[in-house]
């Protein structure tokens, strides 16, 4: 069966709707609780992982590089679960990295600002000004993340299959609409979309595996054939290729592996200056 990815700003009933849709369809719900698992699996600091998604701020914040690293692991973990089908995912940014997969129904929930501020006030017990301020800060952090990592505007409706305005449609009905929509034949998995998903899983896993040593590696996969592109200075290229090979081979499902090196002009220039 299909997968549902729900995207919403905070305090837009994303979690509630996701859980209820999952219950209704007998799907698994995949939300931020996965973060703990991810942190354990790769020994990552959980608060930073949360911050990397643009959700809560840590004291020192996350550098772009760190964010890419944390998200590489997260993507690998999320996609692994999504490939198992019958999942409703929310709060993990999945809608960004399953964009082209036809059996993922991408839903955007919208709620107007005042309602969100009220929800925030109730939840945090703050006054209106503080709630609005906190909410604004959060939205901005997330928008920055979306642009920095995925070059996308999260609230662009053309990214989604379905957008539901919760000011006009109540939660009950929204759950129904989503559950119904996913039954359409067009969201059924097929060899093509299945393959895309599998390749995506593979690529993110290789990427996560490589990240600590080769953060600049770009990975793509096609039918189990993995292509890794890494920058390297000319004389280190052989070494780099074999290092990447050794790491990437460890990942299950890699049928064949091709490593391409592009000349690292910057590094070369920097070296020649030394």
């Amino acid at each position: 069966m299909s997968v549902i990815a729900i995207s919403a700003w905070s305090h837009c009933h994303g979690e509630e709707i996701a859980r209820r849709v999952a219950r209704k369809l007998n799907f698994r719900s995949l939300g931020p609780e996965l973060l703990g698992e991810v942190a354990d699996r790769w020994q990552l600091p959980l608060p930073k992982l949360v911050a990397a998604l643009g959700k809560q701020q840590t004291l020192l914040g996350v550098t772009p590089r760190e964010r890419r690293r944390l998200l590489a692991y997260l993507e690998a973990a999320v996609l692994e679960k999504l490939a198992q089908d019958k999942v409703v995912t929310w709060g993990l940014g999945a809608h960004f990295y399953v964009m082209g997969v036809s059996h993922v129904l991408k839903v955007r929930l919208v709620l107007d600002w005042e309602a969100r501020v009220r929800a925030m006030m109730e939840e945090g017990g703050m006054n209106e000004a503080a709630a609005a301020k906190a909410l604004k800060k959060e939205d901005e952090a997330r928008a920055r993340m979306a642009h920095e990592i995925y070059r996308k505007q999260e609230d662009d409706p053309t990214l989604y299959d379905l957008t539901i305005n919760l000011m006009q449609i109540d939660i009950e009905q929204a759950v129904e609409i989503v559950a119904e929509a996913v039954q359409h034949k067009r969201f059924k998995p097929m060899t093509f979309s299945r393959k895309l998903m599998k390749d995506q899983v593979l690529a993110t896993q290789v990427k996560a595996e490589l990240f600590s040593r080769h953060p600049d590696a770009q990975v793509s996969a096609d039918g189990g054939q993995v292509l890794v592109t890494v920058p390297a200075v000319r004389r280190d290229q052989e070494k780099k290729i074999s290092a990447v090979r050794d790491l990437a081979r460890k990942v299950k499902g890699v049928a064949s592996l091709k490593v391409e090196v592009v000349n690292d002009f910057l590094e070369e220039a920097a070296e020649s200056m030394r």
Partner: protein
Amino acid sequence: MSDTLEVLVLDDEPIVGKRLKPALAKVGCAVEVFDSPAAALARIAEKEFDVVVTDIRMDEIDGMQVLEAVNRKSLRTKVIMITGYAMMSLAREAMEKGAFDFIAKPFTPEDLREVIGRAAQALRSPAEPPSALAG
């Protein structure tokens, strides 16, 4: 696979038919090959196939029309779409119109045999809705 599966393969690239015919015959399919959509449609009108494999992007008549023609003829027939122009919207359209599966080119003969195997399975247990890849 005891009884033979009646398969029609349509692609305006003649090599596709030439290679798929023996590849599918191996697993006990009776394959008819066409590289002209018009001729294939005429044949579909005559005979109810178990499986139709069709390219989407062809001149004159496209694969979607073939899919519709097959559906008109018999809802039992499983249609497998193969295309070099695989895009999310096209794939979804094909599924919505009742395609059994959608495969992007390039694919291997084994890939197709696998899908046809699943189609055969679905044909044998028609009670279940053809949820191709369930489970």
